[in-house]
């Protein structure tokens, strides 16, 4: 069955955004999704829940690690943190994404070439 987020984003996009956000600071799931929504100005319609399969994939590949902590609002939360491998992976993903974007943009803007 098709996963809902694949309808809206290209594969790997969500992971890339998660990694980028975590690079700035470690966050727990809820805060992470709120941050992505906020920074994208709510342009990206993602279901909050779709974050979790993506987080599990990252955990499995050891690009992030997680540990239980207590938040400022005195809530038990699981804080995700970028690993060294995660940082490297992010860098690679971002640069290949930029190349792809550049390619697409060139095609989409006629007259330049």
């Amino acid at each position: 069955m098709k996963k809902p987020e694949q309808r809206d984003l290209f594969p790997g996009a969500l992971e890339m955004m998660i990694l980028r956000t975590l690079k700035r600071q470690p966050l727990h799931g809820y805060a992470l999704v709120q941050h992505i929504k906020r920074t994208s100005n709510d342009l990206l319609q993602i279901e909050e829940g779709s974050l979790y399969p993506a987080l599990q994939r990252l955990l499995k590949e050891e690009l992030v690690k997680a540990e239980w902590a207590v938040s400022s609002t005195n809530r038990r939360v699981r804080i995700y943190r970028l690993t060294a491998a995660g940082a490297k992976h992010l860098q690679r993903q971002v640069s290949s994404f930029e190349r792809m974007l550049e390619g697409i943009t060139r095609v989409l803007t006629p007259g330049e070439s």
Partner: protein
Amino acid sequence: MMNWFKQLFSRRRLYDDLSEEIHEHLEEKIEELVASGMPRKEAAAAARREFGNVTLMEGDSREVWRWSSIENFLMDVRYGLRMLRRSPGFTAIAVLTLALGIGANSAIFSLVDSSLLRALPFSKSARLVRIYTTETDGEIHTPSATEYLALRKYAQSFDEITGLGWADYFYGSDQSGWQNISGYRITTNWLTALGVQPYLGRNFVEEEQEAGRDNVAILSFNCWRSRFHADPQIVGQRLTLNRRNFTVVGVLPETLGRYYGDDIFAPLVLSSYTAARGRDRARVQIAARLKPGVTLGQARSEISVIAQQLRASKPPTDLSGHLTVQEFTEEFQNLGPTARNAQRGLWMMLGGAGLVLLIASANVSSLLLARAVKRRKEIAVRATLGCSRPRMIRQLLTECAVLFLCGGILGVLVARWSEDLLMNLIAGLGPNGAYVSINSRIFLFSLGVSFLCALVFGFVPALHATRINLNDSLKDVAPTTVGGFHSRRPRNLFLVSQVALGMVLLVGFGLLLRSFLHVESVPMGYDPANVLTASVGLSTPRYREPSTRLHFLRATVERARLMPGVESAGMTETLPLDGADSGSLIVENHAAGAHEGTRETRRLSVDSEFFSTMKFTMLAGRAFNDNDSIDSAAVVIVNQTFANKFFPKENSLGRRFAFADSPMTWREIVGIVSNVRQRNLDEDSQPIAYLPLAQTLPHDLHLAIRVRDSADMGPVSRGLSNWLWPLDQDLYWAQSTMLQRVHDSESVSLRRPVVTLLALFGGLALLLALIGVFGITSFSVAERTREIGIRIALGAARSEVAGLVLKETLLLTVAGLASGALAALVLTQLLPAGPLGWSGSAISLYGVSRTDSLTYFCSCAVLGFVALAACYIPAQRAMRVDPMVALRYE
């Protein structure tokens, strides 16, 4: 890898963390919404809406951690097992059917594997060679002991030079009677040079090659199994051979049996070996291992130099003594015609087994198709719940594979149980080294075959089962309007192919059976009933003089004639069905234009009573009499083929000819006898010349004794052994009867196992066809209950309803029979053509054509009858359909 391992065990915790995290996420959201002034109930709903499908997300998240393909597979296996358990009847029939099919294949494959597919059982066999010599006629032969000794002394190209001689033993105790067993005498380095490890016990040690210390024996695997019941304690036991005590020191591996088939291996003591036979008559088979770095060419040139020196004393016209080196690998690939045909027999058996498996698989496949209809609802439900079609096909295939593998495993057990049966059967194929041994190779083969069949035969049912119309299937009206003939097409196809395959098998069996019966009842030219035979090997030094041999045997045959119940007794050099020596001849005053081809004839020596004892028919001239002695004129009696071939237009009586090897002895033809089967029952007759044995004094002699009545066979045979044995303590008498020899002759004994096994497979095919037709027909009746109900309600006669059921099945059966007959016409082309005559026997068609109408007719009739019988119960059931019940069913 470790990571994966860790994950497997920490998964429970991972899942708990995940659930808690998602729960906390929702709580946090709700609290935030509440804080912004939303009522709690609304906030909870909004939080869930924003989050998406909680169960799905959690499921997806969990899936990340699973090794999904394997786990899905295991899940499918579990599900499959559950489904199979739920319908034990179906499972039992399917598994049993498959077990028979796969078991038959495993067992036969084991035979084929052991005898045809194994590499040579010697280590580094590419470096092993055999050394031969030539005879006076230039033919290749086993070297003499002299040549063996010379090679051992001078040849430098080899690491080891080994010798192997032959020995006949009589073995046993006085209670059980004596048995003749043949064995080898091997040099103590023979096993090590060839790289053969004893299966039990040890190899010979060097001292055991000395006279007096050689009373040790190593048994062949076959001998150990058949005579000693595979006794694991055999090493160290004593056995009596030729009235001497031997200690068993080892057992050889089974694989050696194909290449060295005799029973007993004992050390070769060259002095006593040559003493019994004379140094130049004692033959030693030479096997040697090339030294590292020495090429075959180098070895050949060295050997030819040695041969030249050995031949220095001989005149240049003498062609004997040329030594040749032949590679082991080449040696063992060139089989005699009989061995080749025995192998062909094995392939035929495997072909038959393959057909049985195909029928069994088609059977199971059609059962699966029938079940798919019953499971339509289950599958529809799964489809609505979002299971994709490929996923369902995979699941159904897995289920099918589970079924077939169960069948395969049970099949291996079937093969194991059939081991003894098969071993007895294939004994007739001769020493071809084939044996049934269910080892890991065979186990893997069975599993592989099951798996392949599951994929091939499970695919159509799986495709068919998942091709569904959700709307119709979910409604509760499923079994009513199941299309017509069209929707049953795959099932019908299986039925047709089952019948067709059965037809091929039955026709093949029928043709071979008719050939077998023809061969068995072929007119032999003599009467084999009531004839006892006794043969003796006179190889001890006492009988080295031909006249001593003749004198001894004459006295014996005279004494046999005096026994009560004996009608007559004669002697021959070779008994019928043993073949005969050959020689080329020179015809005196040969008429121009007469036979110009090779003048090869078979020849054997007989005494004056032999023809009358065997009841040969004299066509012209006279039989031998007591006046034909060494001092009188040389005479000869020829058979009809001889007379027709060499004297086509003239009376051969009174003509003279000589054999090329004794050109001074002109023999006058004094009689013509009718052709007899001298080599095989299905041979082409060849020219044979019979010589009076008083004039030739042959080395081997056999007695043929005709008794008055079949009731006399037992007493005369016992009487014979009572006085034959004490004549000379060192002689072994092999007693038999002509009928037994016919029974054991190649042309019968090669065919018998194949025919028997094909009969077994044919029966199995019929049984499977019965089950298959019954299953499909009953199912289609069950499926059409409503239709039948309506027909009856509308006034159809019961017989019409039965006709409806029968018509469809019979139509399919006829289609199957027709296509099967066509396939059989093509496939029987694979059966070997024509008898081989003197060079060996084949499992060929004999006295019956490939298109034998009787065989085709009988196969059709039997299969048709079985199909009809299988329809009987379903047709009865259709006739008994109560329209009220059928229509109220929904």
